[in-house]
């Protein structure tokens, strides 16, 4: 669109005090159905927050199922939880928290215009994300080897023998593992999407697209990443820490 045709039609009054009011030539990132960058930024942020609300409802259904069955089948849930590897779970939690730190710092770097630091932080984030997924793969593999994957080969005799004094119903234990795989699986899927997203973000950051004037996609992708992190922070205690007290 030519400059003449691109009239700045303010969507909201008054705008004279907005930080972007100075620019009459528009930011190249401005999409033309928006009045100005401020409106665009706020719309994008609201959109991402609403999307995260839908994600809460999405995971919420599984959390609901988890709550019901944990109440009914506590022994099996506790035993199943104890059979998960606490070491890997804790490392993964630390990895994700660190990745959220690097994401937050990367937004700051963009705000300060430090492109090199920004790219390093984004690459670190990607690294952490991939480490998380790798460890998740290790954990799933060991579950597969232990025959704890629901289906025809499912077998929890090892758990039942470990705790002979606690009554364990294999069917109920299978529900625990069904939920374990469903919840961690969907979480891992969201992580994969996050890694994909941040690959693009890192590339664009390297190309210099983000700076103090415009870093909205980075910020919103960061929101998404933090959300996936928070889901894990709920999953970790609910799945790994049900009952880690030493047994009587």
């Amino acid at each position, binding site marked *: 669109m030519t400059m003449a045709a691109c009239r700045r039609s303010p969507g909201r*009054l008054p705008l004279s005090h907005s930080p972007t009011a100075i620019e009459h030539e528009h930011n190249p990132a401005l999409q033309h159905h928006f009045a100005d960058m401020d409106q665009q930024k706020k719309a994008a942020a609201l959109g991402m927050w*609403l999307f995260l609300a839908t994600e809460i409802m999405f995971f*919420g259904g599984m959390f609901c199922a988890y709550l*019901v069955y944990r109440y009914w089948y506590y022994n099996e849930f506790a035993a199943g939880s104890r059979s998960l590897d606490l070491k890997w779970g804790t490392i993964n939690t630390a990895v994700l928290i660190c990745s959220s730190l690097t994401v937050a710092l990367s937004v700051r770097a963009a705000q300060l215009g430090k492109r090199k630091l920004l790219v390093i932080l984004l690459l670190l984030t990607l690294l952490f994300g991939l480490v998380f997924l790798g460890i998740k793969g290790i954990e799933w593999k060991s579950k597969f080897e232990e025959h704890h994957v629901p289906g025809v080969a499912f077998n929890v005799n090892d758990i039942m023998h470990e705790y002979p004094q606690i009554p364990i119903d294999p069917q109920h234990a299978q*529900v625990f593992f069904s939920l374990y795989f469903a919840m961690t699986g*969907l979480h891992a899927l969201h992580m994969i999407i996050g890694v994909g997203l941040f690959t693009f973000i890192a590339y664009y950051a390297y190309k210099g697209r983000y700076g103090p004037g415009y870093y909205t996609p980075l910020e919103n992708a960061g929101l998404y990443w933090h959300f996936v992190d928070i889901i894990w922070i709920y999953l970790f205690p609910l799945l790994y820490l049900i009952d880690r007290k030493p047994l009587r």
Partner: protein
Amino acid sequence: MSTAATISAEREHYLNKGYGIRSWLFTTDHKRIALLYLVTITFFFFVGGILALLIRLELLTPAGDLVQADTYNKLFSEHGQVMVFFFLIPSIPAVLGNFLVPLMIGAKDLAFPRINLLSWYLLVIAGIIMLHAMMVGGVDTGWTFYTPFSTAFSHTSVVEAGISIFIAGFSSILTGLNFVVTIHRMRAPGMTWSRLPLFIWAHYATSIIQLLGTPVLAITLLLVVFERVFKLGIFDPIRGGDPLLFQHLFWFYSHPAVYIMILPAMGVMNEIITCFSRKRIFGYSFVAMSSIAIAVFGFLVWAHHMFVAGISLYSALIFSLLSYSVAVPSAIKVFNWTATMYKGSITYSTPLLYALGFIGLFTMGGMTGLYLASLGIDVHVTDTYFVIAHFHYIMVGGAVMGYLGGMHYWWPKISGRMYPESWGRLAALIVFIGFNLTFFPQFVMGYLGMPRRYWQYPAEFQVLNVLSTAGATILAVGYLLPMVYFLWSMRYGKIADANPWNAVGLEWMTESPPPTFNFDETPEVTWEAYDYGRVPPQPREVAVEP
């Protein structure tokens, strides 16, 4: 009769700006996307309608003699799934909402035009998967997918249908997200919340439900798919699961879903009744708040679908009480519309006829909801034709008539043409008569005890079934007529000017059809909604030299 050539040669607007399939399939113009949706949902309306006709034909006789039992079970299951997910849920928001929300608030487009296009593609992809599922194996679980039948007993394409609806759900979520952000952030100067058309309030409430409710359906269907494929045991009692957990999760979405279907139609009513009574709406803030109240309360009543399913007495009491509370805001709306007509100056246009039909039929459907909310009555009539009649009164007598009324009202804006008025009135009358003949006998059938989803039935129910089928054929004619004359009008209809109804609203202040960016200048709003009391001033333009 001016020809199409005259209109397009004169002025550029959204329909003639760019021709060719690419300009449509890759458009980000909300108005074009609305038309893409129009074609898609009309197609699925036909698919669902043909399924309905087959059902009604089978039910002409008590014996199962038209199709086999398994086929019949697929017919009603697919009728429900296609009609709910591929027609009713998108219909008004995706066609009229997409077209009008930016226009009504004075914006150039929705907040996220590319996501809008993505929504449409998701619906199309989901639709193709559903059609494939129907043709290869079919689905026979009912649209409700109750477990363990759907997870462990059905031999049909449950997984495909589940995936299809999962994808369609995301189409719905993204549309809702788009609307909420647009309404919050892109209103024209002076367009405060209390000046918004109630159509916008209704779509706002609808969008909240779409955002918060649909993901729960998505995860529920996903778990059903996992259970079927990986033999998990989340909903199957043989494997330690609970079938009632499925029902709770399913209805947690599917009850608010019915409000997704009706709220937009209520939104349309506000526009039509005010325009053709030449009056502002009676009790604007009450109607606006009722929309929000319906959305909120709608999330609190889901287990009224489960009164005889095995829930506790106390749960049943709570849900029954809450179900009555959600009826109050709907009642408020009906009273307000009636009061709007008081001392008005009423024109019997086709949209108004549909609106009056809506009020009558929605009232009847809503009243029968009161019967269902009553625990004592529900035990007898749940899972019978009484429920079928109840929800068809609201969804067809309500939502579909609201949709048709809205299509007629905004057709001049969408196409730049007028539809033929006398044909419009005739079709409205045929729809009304056909509808009542189809569904009123079903109330009687239901109280007499005829259960739902019955391929064959005891002979004493035949007379009522025959009446119902007769009505269905008349209804079908009523639905075909607008198809024909809308298409006819696109070439031969009278050319419409910007405001053929002399209505109040920003969408009437731009040309018919509108230019691609909706307004030549961003309007500034200084008048109240439905300000039929005085001629609205010319919109004051806000232009800044570059």
